[in-house]
């Protein structure tokens, strides 16, 4: 992973309007319709390097549609996505990955029958001069990458279906950040984890923020949001109904915003 300067002091609420910090990702007025359903309408958001942005909203508020447009799984009907100031278009998740946008899906998207190293390098396998898979090289690198995420990880050889939920998560996160990610999208990263494993994921998120990644966190868990996020974007009915800085935010305000989003037209 490449060290990147941490360009932001995250305690400042006025930062959202600060022109000094270049936004890493800017989604401008993006919309997406499925037939007659407006899944996302005119939504805009900003993500800076070294920032955790939480995305909240009731079910069907457009969170996953918005995320999938950023990760390249969907392309917006209108609007623009800018990455480091340059307009980008993603035809596939692969395009987004080439631009440094990595996603950890809620179901982790691991090939359960393969080992940790094979999953880490899935789609990006190293090959030797003769075109054969460089198994030893990939395993050595995978060991390093996964231990960097989770120092207690042990089983590098078994198929990942034999691993615990937290270990599988470690593999998925290591895969997302190992190839010089700049933006990391985490879709419900703690939904299926126990308290200890949730703690570990929280530590990992903090560490990645320190390293200067921009992180988008989709979560239902308000505790997680308050513990991890610097800013919160609340969605309702496909629109952005509010943006808050977490230090200055009370639980009541946030809940009110989510409920208001739920009844918004």
């Amino acid at each position: 992973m490449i060290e990147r300067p941490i360009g932001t002091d995250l305690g400042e609420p006025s930062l959202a309007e600060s022109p000094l910090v270049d936004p890493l990702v800017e989604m401008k007025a993006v919309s997406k319709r499925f037939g007659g359903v407006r899944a996302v309408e005119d939504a805009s958001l900003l993500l800076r390097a070294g920032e955790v942005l939480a995305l909240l909203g009731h079910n069907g508020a457009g969170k996953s549609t918005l995320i999938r447009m950023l990760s390249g799984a969907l392309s917006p009907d209108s609007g623009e996505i800018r990455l480091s100031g340059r307009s980008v278009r993603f035809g596939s998740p692969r395009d987004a990955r080439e631009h440094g946008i990595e996603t950890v899906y809620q179901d982790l998207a691991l090939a359960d029958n393969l080992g940790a190293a094979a999953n880490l390098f899935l789609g990006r396998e190293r090959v030797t001069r003769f075109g054969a898979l460089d198994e030893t090289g990939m395993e050595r690198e995978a060991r390093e990458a996964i231990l960097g995420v989770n120092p207690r990880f042990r089983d590098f050889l078994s198929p990942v279906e034999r691993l615990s939920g937290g270990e599988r998560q470690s593999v998925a996160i290591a895969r997302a950040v190992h190839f010089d990610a700049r933006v990391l999208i985490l879709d419900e990263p703690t939904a299926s984890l126990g308290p200890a494993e949730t703690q570990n994921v929280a530590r990992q998120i903090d560490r990645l923020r320190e390293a200067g990644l921009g992180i988008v966190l989709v979560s239902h868990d308000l505790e997680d949001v308050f513990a991890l996020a610097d800013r919160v974007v609340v969605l309702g009915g496909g629109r952005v109904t509010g943006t808050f800085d977490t230090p200055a935010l009370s639980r009541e305000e946030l809940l009110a915003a989510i409920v208001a989003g739920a009844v918004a037209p």
Partner: protein
Amino acid sequence: MLLAWSAGIVGLVSIMNAYPQPKTGVARGIPVPVLLWIATAIGTTALLRRTRFGRYVYAIGGNPEAAALAGIDVRRVTLGVFAWMGALAALGAVITTARLGAGTNAIGTLAELSVIADAVIGGTSLAGGRGSVPGAILGALIMQSLENGMLLLGVSSAARQIAIGLLLIAAVWLDTATRRGRGES
């Protein structure tokens, strides 16, 4: 490891050469279909275990959505698998035609059933993502030994079919049961 392999190869060659032609006394040697079989088995194993393509085949078998999200062109790899299968079937057809000295359009009809049975008994998962060439060879060996043994015992054709069907059911049941044990749905 290397020693075991060389011993195996020397053993096979000497066994194959131990049978002389009745008229000339010249050793019969290794039949070409056996050589083709060895080459195919080694080639396909290498393809599956040592190349990106093989890795993708296993990944798609395990979780096609994850493979697609990882940037693997699932349709292309699937096409490649079918192409390889077609090539192997063609090789089988060439051998069969050569052995019979004649060809008919009905040769090999229903052979796919025994091929699938061999693979499943050899550990290939019907749900995908699991299996190997040596396993399939072992499965074929078991099935053919059984078939041949029953034939020599004079078991009727109907009873043979039933026995093999039961074995196939047992193999599929074992596959599903162990998969459930591993925590898959």
